[in-house]
């Protein structure tokens, strides 16, 4: 079991008023979690804090792997009644707008080989899913790494890689573009979405369980501009429980800090090389998120320098002709579910017409989607 190290976070804040220099030192507890009695210990502490806070608290996790971890360990079963763990839009497949799915399916049906990460191939759009296109003869490759795509390109020179994912995954696509891969980018930046959710979201968010691996790339400093209690959390059971505890402590003490529970992997500056590579290849601009709409500065578009490998430019003749009617979208509540505004059970299609075998929307397709996870638990 992981040991969470002491983190000293010295925040120097210069208060010019009355020429006072306030030195804030935040010392975070060292946790040593040995066995079940320690889990009980953290859970007791969570219960104690929840009682003191009294009112309902909404903690949003924004990473599909956290959604999975919470289900996997049955963490919701251990939460006091007033603590709600809400699933946010951290599943990249789930937040990919249907227009992008329709575009890729159209390219596939036009004979262009497509490679993408796993779950994506099952997401249904107006013209079916990529998997349906494969059934009709299109060449679709579900891959684990862009390296496989680069390899496939040798046999299929006109291969297009459907790039999706956040700050953790965009560097890999950037690397692949620099190595000659043609890409349709649906990549997004996650941090702008967190601010958007606080301002315009349909749910009240009292704190964020910050995404562990996005944080490995962006570091901890980047989150300071987000005005909410945050804890960057790892993915083991004890990480998540400690993260929840630290958030409740912030809420109880009326603080809004960025705390790092995942110190074994996340540093203040993150992985600068990977992060900077994103911006050597991409530019940020408007990003279209399923259910959340347009979020400024959250979309990653391939820069002019690499235009020759931008599938949106290369195949604009096909893409411009596509009429997006969003038929599939109409009844699907995925857009509300990914913001935590609705629970999967509140979607009329959940577990009736929409199941993992016959999914209507990406929340049911993706193994990180809230509906899929709810169905399986």
């Amino acid at each position, binding site marked *: 079991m992981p040991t969470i190290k002491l983190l000293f976070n010295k925040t120097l804040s210069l208060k010019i008023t009355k020429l006072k220099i306030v030195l804030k030192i935040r010392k975070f507890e060292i946790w040593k979690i040995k066995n*079940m009695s320690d*889990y009980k210990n953290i859970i007791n502490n969570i219960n104690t804090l929840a009682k003191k806070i009294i009112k309902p608290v909404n903690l949003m996790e924004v990473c*599909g*792997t956290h959604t999975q971890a919470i*289900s*996997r*360990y*049955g*963490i919701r*079963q*251990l939460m006091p009644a007033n603590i709600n763990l809400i699933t946010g839009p951290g*599943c*990249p*497949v789930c937040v990919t707008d249907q227009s992008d799915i329709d575009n890729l399916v159209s390219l596939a049906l036009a004979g262009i080989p497509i490679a993408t*990460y*796993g*779950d994506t*191939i*099952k997401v249904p759009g107006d013209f079916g899913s990529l*998997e349906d296109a494969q*059934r009709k003869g299109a060449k679709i490759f*579900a891959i*684990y*790494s862009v390296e496989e795509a680069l390899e496939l390109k040798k046999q299929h020179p006109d291969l297009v890689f459907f790039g999706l*994912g956040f700050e953790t*995954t965009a560097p890999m696509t950037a690397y692949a573009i620099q190595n000659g891969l043609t890409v349709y980018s649906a990549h997004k930046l996650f941090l702008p979405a967190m601010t958007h959710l606080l301002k315009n979201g349909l749910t009240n968010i009292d704190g964020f369980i910050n995404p562990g691996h996005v944080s490995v790339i962006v570091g901890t400093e980047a989150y300071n501009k987000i005005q909410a209690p945050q804890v960057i959390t790892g993915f083991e*059971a004890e990480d998540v429980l400690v993260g929840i505890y630290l958030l409740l402590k912030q809420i109880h003490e009326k603080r809004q800090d960025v705390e790092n529970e995942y110190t074994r992997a996340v540093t203040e500056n993150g992985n600068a090389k990977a992060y900077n590579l994103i911006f050597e290849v991409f530019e940020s601009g408007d990003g279209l998120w399923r259910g959340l709409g347009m979020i400024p500065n959250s979309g990653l578009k391939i820069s002019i320098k690499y235009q020759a490998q931008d599938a949106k430019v290369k195949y604009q003749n096909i893409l411009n002709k596509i009429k997006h009617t969003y038929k599939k979208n109409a009844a699907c509540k995925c857009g509300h579910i990914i913001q935590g505004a609705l629970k999967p059970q509140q979607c009329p299609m959940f577990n009736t017409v929409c199941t*993992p*075998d016959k999914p209507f929307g990406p929340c049911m397709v*993706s*193994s*990180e989607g809230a509906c899929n996870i709810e*169905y*399986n*638990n």
Partner: protein
Amino acid sequence: MNNLIKIDEGGGGQASADLIKEIRDILNIKNKWTNCNDDAAIFNTGKEKIVFTTDAYIVDPIFFPGGDVGKIAMSGTINDLSVMGAKPIGISLSIVIEDGFPKDDLKKIMQSINNVSREAQVPIVTGDTKVTDKGKLDKIVITTSGVGLAQNIISNNGAQPGDFIISSGDLGEHTIALLSKRFNYQTKIKSDSHAFNFELAQVGKYLKACKDPTRGGLAANIIEIADKSKVKIILDEKTLPYKKETTAISNLLGLDVFSLASEGRFIAAVSPKNINKTLTLLKKFNKEARIIGHAESGKGVFLKTSLNTLRPIKMPKGKLIPRIC
């Protein structure tokens, strides 16, 4: 119902079960055969029971660490008879080969089949060989059918509250070995493919329900036992029968470890009074044989997590697709 067959419907998950039901609804003549919805059908002659089963083997790659398509084709059918409590007496072998398939490869596969035949002491007694045009088939498809004789049939619905659930060894290793070439990793894990007729015969009389977790992995097969026996089964995370390397590779690729197939293992329900002798006998064949859970009244299959919470185990989806996110 969909009008085009989907790859998921061959994956052993819910979609497969649905397709098989559709087919069974059409093929409704059984005469005196019973148990036709199971691993093997039964014909009671009065003196003993004839057990009959069949399976087709399509595998990519056809040669993998620990075996090849021939080894699993032969072992698989022998095992399907064994889990019913039958002594396999003869296997038929049907091969369909693509034009251009290397003859040496065919000979290697036949040799593998012969090795299993010799070790398990079960003969191939009849067969058929066809060759298709190039492109009309992917390399080779092998179908084996098997006949066995049994006095007492081991059911898959005899688990009762209080019974222990056991596994004859570590699971999932066939799939892990098979995927190593596709996903480019090196592993010491070899396919667990082997014929377990002798192993199972030692403990057959103690098994109240038994399945071999091939397609659909542990999840699909334990759910079948629980549903058919009308019990609730709780597996313990602390005693799950998977090597660390298996779990690590599943985590790396984002696969569900419970859906990984084994080709030489069985899971079973055993009453408390027989558990010690059953495990003592099984450990002679595989020291990883162990208790992995227990049955209670109720329904469903659950995993008791390291936090003592209960997490439901559901039928696997179908084709294994890796995820990165």
